[in-house]
């Protein structure tokens, strides 16, 4: 079937199998490989992208379901000129990533979290990111990064 999705501001129209997952469409048809696949049970969140501004796990959305909608991936996060998006900047400043594999999904989930709750508590950050797994950081610095991105003080 023919699927058209606006990904990071560019419309990608491709003929794909009906069963094509959004994450594969993003990676293969759109050629954007930041979004990773970490599991097959919707558990890990590595594939998190924004669908019409809301975070979704793109391994559990069919490309067909996103037909005619807008998707934002890590590559499309708006920065200010050459500057990074505040969440990207904060992940670097707070060492919120190590191997980087969960990072694209973690950043997109954090963007969505802050969109809904601009000044979260640390506990709210932990609960908001429960669906995104990280094996490297023990989450401490991810929480710091989200707090930093929200403009709140972080104790290192």
């Amino acid at each position, binding site marked *: 079937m023919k699927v058209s999705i606006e990904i990071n501001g560019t419309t990608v129209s491709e003929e794909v199998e009906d069963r094509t997952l959004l994450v594969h469409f993003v990676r293969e048809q759109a050629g954007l490989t930041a979004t*990773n696949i970490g599991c097959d*049970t919707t558990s890990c969140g590595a594939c998190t992208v924004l669908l019409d501004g809301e975070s979704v796990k793109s391994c559990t959305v069919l490309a067909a379901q996103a037909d005619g909608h807008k998707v934002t991936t890590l590559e499309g996060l708006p920065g200010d000129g050459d500057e990074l998006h505040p969440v*990207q900047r904060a992940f670097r400043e707070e060492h919120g990533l*190590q191997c980087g594999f969960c990072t694209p999904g973690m950043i997109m989930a954090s963007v969505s979290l802050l969109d809904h709750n601009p000044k979260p508590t640390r506990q709210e950050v932990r609960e908001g990111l429960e669906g995104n797994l990280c094996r490297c950081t*023990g*989450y401490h610095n991810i929480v710091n990064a989200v707090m930093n991105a929200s403009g709140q003080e972080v104790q290192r």
Partner: protein
Amino acid sequence: MSIVGTRVVRIEDHQLITQGGTYVEDLRVEELTGAVHAMFVRSPVAHARITVDASAALEAPGVVGVYTAADIDLAPHKAGPVVEPWLADGVVRYVGEPVALVLTEERYQLADAAELIDVDYDPLEAVASIDAALSGQTLLFEDQGTNVLQTKGGDFDDAAFDDCEVVVTQTVVNQRVAPAPLEVRGAACAWGDDGRLTLWLSTQNAQISRATVAKGLGLEAEQVRVVTPDVGGGFGAKIGTDPESVVLGWASKRAGRPVRWVETRSENLVSMTHGRAQQNTVTVGGRRDGTVLAFRLEVVQDAGAYPRTMFLPTFTQLMGTGVYRFPKVETSSRAVVTNTTPIAAYRGAGRPEATAAIERAMDLFAAEIGMDPAEVRRVNFIRPEEFPYNSPTGASYDTGEYGKALDKVLEAGGYAELRAEQARRREAGDPVALGLGLAAYVEITGGDNGGESGRLLINPDGSVTAYTGSSPHGQGLDTTLAMLLSDQLGVPMDKIAIRHGDTDEVPRAVGTFGSRSLQLGGSALRQAADQVIERARELAADRLEAAPDDVELSEGVFQVRGAPASGWVTWAQLAAETELTADVWFGDGAPTFPFGAHLAVVEVDTLTGKVVLKRIIACDDAGPIVNPLTFQGQRHGGLGQGAAQALLEVMNYDADGNPTTATLADYSFITATELPDFELVDSETPTTRNPLGVKGIGEAATIGSTPAVHNAVVDALSHLGVRHLDMPTTPLRVWQALSDARKAN
């Protein structure tokens, strides 16, 4: 001012946070154009005789090849004393064992074709536990005559504990867990027209992978190039390479096509090696004043179906006595095969198991004699003046301040106040019990004695390219090494490129595991830089018409000491004329012994069994800290994984060898909500065993935190009659332990 020791954000990060890493599945290199996709068909049965009919699959859309054991014409390879087939040959021995390989044009065609492969499984009795293996009723390898494939030590003295006033003994199960890096295993391969194989592999050490793959394919090492793209975590389970990589290389040649492979997570959880899986009986005897007189450790390692890695129980024996000076010590180990996923390294690899056993035993001994667990530890610590200390098990500890580390966490945590709060709750009959858990640990890093390579090149523009044999995959070692070289050479970090993981660029190396990279890889580059500086000083002296001894390197330029007005020479000037390079093998770095102490605080709801980890206070001493940012990051990750094992994670099998936690929906991978903020206390005790004075930090916090959290849970329940329960301390386990204690009383 030197940047070494200051907090420096990572040079790795920009790419990772803007475009994402380039992991093996992200590769879009020309050599992989037209690559076919690969999928292994894996056994759903733990132990069975099999017959395979792949004929229907060959007719499926897009199928390029279907291969089974009958097709593979490679020499068999050994796992320990037995043969591990490339693809299961007549019998399967664990759920997840590869039975066939399918190649298709399109990714989604793989599962369709795999469905059509007809495998007939004729079940055999499964050996699904250590106890079943030891019973010997069913053997995995009849020709071995036993399931016990390795035995070390065990000639015990019956009178070892005769002088003791108190003896405690406990079997401590160190449960099987899944390493579960976020990036599963993946590989891609392509044969060149020159008959050379290029293998892109998610690995912790390309060079050892190259050796394994070349041997498997019957090639010389030079005929294989391994390239390591970004690696999404390894935790020991990506050391070297698994048999799948050899099969992929073989299939790529057979099909005449480049091949891409990435497993699914559910495949990964049953077919990437698991970790831990020991059952350890520990006995401690001593006097009522807290002095331990005798120690015995009997290790049983579940090696899984094929014993790929046999050093784990040996490492556990080596580190068995931990931070303590025990007069009488006896250890033994046995490794058994079972119908389960093979076991290999997982963050700590043998040392967490040792620490878990001794630290549980010290608590049990303390409880038996009615002494505070902190005090019992203090009485038995190896003292600072005793270093270097030769342990009775054969380890040579370099430096340590064990008492200091313990005191630091007790003070930072407010131990006395916490004990008072615990007493208050007990007095009041509070159903939410407070538990305090201690662990004091020492571990061994760079324990493989394998050395490491480092090659340095000053480019004609004065920039630096450093080739390291280490193979970081999240640790931030590029930044750490660039900081050290910047400090040493006076070249800004952004003019230093760190390269690793391509066997054409770095042919000889050992890689990243066992927390070895800074102490060995870093030391190799330190020595390479020393050599380059020495050569450059001679060249600069010529230009400055001075004696080399009078020329100094200061802030990146060479000048005559005390006479800066006489001019200077830059790296670029020297490198434009003469090749400035050095290639070093740092081979004399003996293992080092990081140490520390952890204090965990838990709350346990005694009505439901639910455990909440409230605090963890960690002192981890690995010598001088190069970059506090990544040093803390390694500790955070270690604390998270250590706590995960104590609280939640376990790879379970039923009696027929079926894994019951084989998806991420079932496996209790720890999340952000189950961990507290971490409280870190610093301590820096250098070693003399390498020029940087450093020890490894990659695994230390895992080793300390697991027993600290475990001990905290038992401590919370001790007043209710619970003496021990095994990990993970899930609500059901806790509730059961409380229920059993009530019945016993």
